[in-house]
């Protein structure tokens, strides 16, 4: 069981680093925490080298809080800004090559299913728009066609943040970016529709303005993937550096974009719907007790 590794050997409590002890004692391993409690327990990502005020970093923090089962979750990332925070978290992280996330996740999930047939080991990909929809496009699509049971989350900052601001397939049409000196020539790729067509059983598009909703969406995507097949979340996570959004305005920008292009959208198959309603009904009952 994954909780073994977040248990301190008796007698060693005094000698372990303070932050580690806090994480084990108050962190989300083996117990449910609410995103609204963020800051009241040791968070899974504490420090990271992403830009100050980066909205993607905020989203990643909420993501870790929302995990239904952090002690049995493996996160897969790729070259891009997100992995800078992902690899600093207290959840195992795999980083392969640029764009290979969904192929690595396919192999990993299958290996875990062979080795632990009776346990849920959640595999979650978090990668940029470039990583998933440009360079890794074939691998992303095929993991969906093959109905691999893991969640893919696209942190869409509409640009290649990590290499300094080149256009991606997800950049809006017309926007002038590095390597698009005359403005981008084609529309944003419709990733959500592709995901539906390719066989995802749960699909959502969000602008992360509301932490409770982000958490619920992430939980739903992960739980559905466990039982039914691939799930996908398309999240707008602005790049304040490349799009020159002042730090204090990133939330306002997220709200604006929510109205314009990222209105909350959620779609799932009937069986996923039935399953999630049942899970959530039981959870509500638990809370009442």
């Amino acid at each position: 069981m994954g909780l073994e590794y977040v248990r301190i050997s008796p007698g060693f409590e005094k000698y372990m680093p303070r932050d580690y002890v806090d994480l084990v004692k108050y962190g989300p391993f083996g117990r449910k925490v609410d995103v609204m409690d963020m800051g009241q327990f040791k968070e899974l990502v504490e420090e990271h080298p992403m830009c100050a005020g980066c909205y993607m970093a905020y989203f990643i923090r909420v993501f870790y809080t929302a995990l239904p089962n952090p002690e049995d979750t493996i996160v897969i990332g790729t070259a891009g800004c997100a992995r800078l925070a992902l690899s600093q978290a207290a959840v195992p992280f795999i980083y392969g090559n640029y764009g290979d996330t969904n192929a690595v996740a396919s192999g990993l999930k299958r290996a875990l299913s062979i080795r632990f047939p009776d346990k849920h080991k959640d595999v979650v990909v978090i990668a940029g728009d470039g990583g998933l929809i440009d360079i890794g496009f074939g691998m992303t699509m095929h993991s969906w066609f093959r109905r691999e049971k893991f969640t893919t989350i696209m942190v869409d900052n509409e640009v290649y943040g990590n290499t300094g601001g080149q256009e991606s397939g997800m950049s809006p049409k017309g926007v002038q970016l590095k390597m698009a000196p005359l403005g981008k020539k084609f529309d944003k790729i419709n990733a959500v529709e592709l995901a539906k067509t390719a066989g995802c059983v749960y699909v959502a598009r969000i602008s992360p303005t509301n932490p409770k909703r982000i958490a619920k969406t992430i939980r739903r995507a992960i739980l559905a993937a466990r039982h039914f097949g691939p799930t996908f979340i398309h999240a707008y996570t602005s790049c304040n550096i490349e799009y020159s959004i002042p730090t204090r305005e990133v939330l306002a920008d997220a709200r604006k974009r929510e109205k314009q292009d990222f209105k909350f959208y959620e779609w799932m198959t009937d069986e996923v719907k039935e399953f999630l309603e049942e899970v959530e009904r039981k959870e509500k009952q638990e809370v009442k007790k």
Partner: protein
Amino acid sequence: MPEQRVVEPDYLLLEAPREKKFITGSQAFAEAVKRANVDVAIAYPITPQSETMHLVGDLYAQGYVKDYYRAEEEYGAMSAIAGAVRGGARAFTATSGPGLLRGLEAIVSWPGHRIPAVLGVMTRVVNAPLSIQPDNVEISYLLNSGLVVLHAENQQDVFDFTLAGFVISEKVDVYLPVVVATEGFFVTHAKGYVELPPEDMKLPPRDPYKAPVPPTDCEIPPARIQRDAPVQKSNFMSYLIHAVWQQEVWSANRRAAKWIKHYLGGLIEVVNPDAEVFVVASGCAAAQGREAQRYATMEGLNVGLIKVKSLRPFPVDEIREALKNAKAVIVPEHNIVGWLAKEVKAAIPNSGIVVDGPRVYGGMTLPVELIMEEIYKAFGIKKEKKVVV
């Protein structure tokens, strides 16, 4: 499928009774996989590799392999192998020429991730113009990436190297991917005699916790290489960690030598160690070199053969020792760049005695006569060109 009983690797590889079968190289790969207790095999078609992975798919259908699928392309296949192995599974795949190059970025990242997998490489032309013939220039791309690279001469080698490859790659002091290369068609699609241990025996399952880098399965703390990726540290730390890690990968590669000796009888095979002139060759060229050595002996010429089984780790000391009294060294190869000749030259102090060739490329066969011509030259014999029989 017969019930398979787990036996110790040393028993299966070195002691178990063997039965002689007349099979193709592709079948030899599959026979090894059959006995290797493989969890996951992931395939993408390319001639001349496809048949091997068809046969492995058949093993999956029969229950010998636990999971199998046709990947989207080689990059996806090689990345998924990395994922499966990091999840603790034992994995096999194979490819050829252009497929190898397409998957190369993923493949060359395996050693650094400490991925113990076995990769069959059935060589094929990669340069334009298009051809599907078994040129082996692609092996040169693998030599500088930290993988253990074995080069099989025939169907028997394919079987032995592949089965032993799983065992060697999972040794704690090695823990690297093992490539078993052989010439496509010449070996994969031709039959040869292969001594096979019983098919109702298999290797013990992989124990992913017996490892210098543990699996990523949430059962134990994550490896620090994943948690604290070097690239995030200061430049100095980043350089240092990366440099140290590369050194460790290459040390592990060298440590594979003792296991190759143990399971495969050495990194090289020497025929007629007291010769004045040697043919040094690997893979199919070694088979042609063997013939040349035989003809030369029949003609009363003192010629020896060094077959190089392991290209990485490269048997520098063994080759230097075996060639210490040699007057000429002929290195026949199935490629235009002459990667083996370069390696041999670098291994000995008097590289001037190395003859660059003969070489055939584009997948042509390597006539024994070409090697004989070099042998005559080395002995100063002037001969009419004629077919040797």
